[in-house]
């Protein structure tokens, strides 16, 4: 009960939701696009696949270190690249301001804090997460795509379908078990994320103004740093309830729309 009246807890819940929404859909869309392109007659498919998959197997501690270095506020290469496009340097992992506030603030409009969106610090971590999980999704999508029989495409083409129709009415319905599987797996993973967030904000646990403290970090910090074990444990139970609830909803509503061949 004490938990529900804690501001930190609700904040960490919001961070978790931002994180899930900011990593799962972009990663699925991007990896679908890549897998779709790789599934055609492509030279060097296995080389592309190897490269895209590489981040998935590297340790997230080491990779997060590298990304923290890329996002370094004074000598990071990301600011340099942005500079090439005329964009001013950002503080990345140390920036508590919401991404929407930053973007819209550029054109001189102030928006209220609650609508500011995830902090740039959290967005940086999301970028890193998408980078790391992309390869896994690509490989699974690719396996699903190659299992769709060629005749179905031929048939649809004879019926006068253009490429977009094909994707919309043949590929996506037939791929729906794969999409569904990836959706569930990546949602669960995003809810449980720890390594990425812990390592990228190691100097400042929880990130600037606590804007990167998700539920797992909340549990960990309560348990480890503040030794409030019961508090951490009840956070864990809430997390479990949410994941369980979401998975059931996904199974029920999304699962019904899955087409099996």
């Amino acid at each position, binding site marked *: 009960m004490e938990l529900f009246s804690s501001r930190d807890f609700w904040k960490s819940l919001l961070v978790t939701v931002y994180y899930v929404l900011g990593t799962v859909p972009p990663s699925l869309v991007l990896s679908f696009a890549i897998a779709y392109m790789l599934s055609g007659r492509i030279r060097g498919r296995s080389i592309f696949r190897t490269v895209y998959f590489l981040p998935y197997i*590297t340790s997230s501690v080491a990779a997060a270190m590298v990304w923290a270095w890329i996002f370094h506020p004074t000598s990071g290469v990301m600011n340099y690249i942005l500079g090439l496009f005329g964009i001013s340097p950002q503080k990345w992992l140390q920036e508590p301001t919401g991404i929407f506030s930053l973007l819209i603030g550029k054109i001189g409009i102030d928006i209220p804090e609650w609508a500011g969106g995830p902090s740039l610090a959290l967005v940086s971590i999301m970028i890193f997460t998408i980078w790391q999980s992309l390869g896994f999704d690509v490989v699974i999508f690719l396996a699903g795509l190659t299992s769709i029989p060629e005749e179905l495409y031929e048939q649809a083409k004879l019926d006068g379908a253009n490429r977009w129709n094909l994707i919309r009415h043949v590929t996506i319905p037939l791929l729906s078990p794969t999409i569904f599987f990836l959706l569930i797996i990546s949602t669960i993973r995003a809810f449980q994320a720890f390594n990425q967030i812990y390592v990228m904000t190691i100097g400042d646990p929880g990130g600037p103004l606590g804007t990167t403290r998700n539920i797992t970090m909340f549990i960990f910090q309560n348990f480890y740093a503040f030794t409030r074990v019961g508090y951490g444990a009840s956070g864990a139970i809430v997390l479990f309830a949410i994941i369980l609830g979401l998975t059931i909803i996904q199974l029920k509503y999304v699962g019904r729309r899955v087409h099996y061949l």
Partner: protein
Amino acid sequence: MSLKAKSERFLLYLFLTVGAVVVGFPFFWMVISSLKPLEDVVKFPPTIIPTRWMFSNYIEAWKSAPFARYFINTLLVASLVTIGVLLTSSLAAYAFALMEFKGKSFIFSLFLATMMVPYEVTLIPNFVLIRKLGWYNTYAALIIPWSCNAFSVFLLRQFFMNIPKDLFDAARIDGCGELGMLWRVAIPLSTPAILTVSLFSFLGSWNALLWPLVVTSSEDMRVLQVGLAVFLREEGTQYHLLMAAASFTIAPIVVLYFILQRRFIEGIVLSGLKG
């Protein structure tokens, strides 16, 4: 090929190549930064080619923390976890796939239910248990809790169930016991699944951070990932050394990946599609 088809192909390759460059860039940047002297690293705008090639960064990074110890610990833990997982999951999978006993389906669904529980939920109870057992800060705490997992059991069971029953019957007539059938029939016929389970147990253990962080305290018990995180906290600004340490931590797994690449990819697909 028409002009439209040609330009489409060009765009496709362009997109894929740009994507691959973006994905590969952090690795490139890590290695380049690890070979730069300190004054290059903090320079802005950054240069690509180091003014001096500092291979000595690797030696310096290696020496500034007991990385040899971390590597040995990690190798030991990851190998024993893998062996443990193989042992427990093949036995359990065999029982669930081929033996009849009371409450089988109930126990199996209980098994599967554990996959649904996120590990953070069990983190604190497990920690308390480890403390009570007196395993805090020992290898046992790092190895034993991870030596069994429902997913491996599930994957192997699927494989065992697809082996023709006749083979088992033949083995039984030849005087094979249950263990003999597991060892001589089920396992040899499920090599892809066995390899997948080993590969992912090893990889998962090698890359684990949260659990080892929680159950170990002394330096000589640290595994590589924890050691690396501590190194990061202590040497936070020595980016050339951090990148060198990141490089040699990633290297063994990348080498393993290049050797067993097909296995990795097939394994992912296998676990993904069956799971």
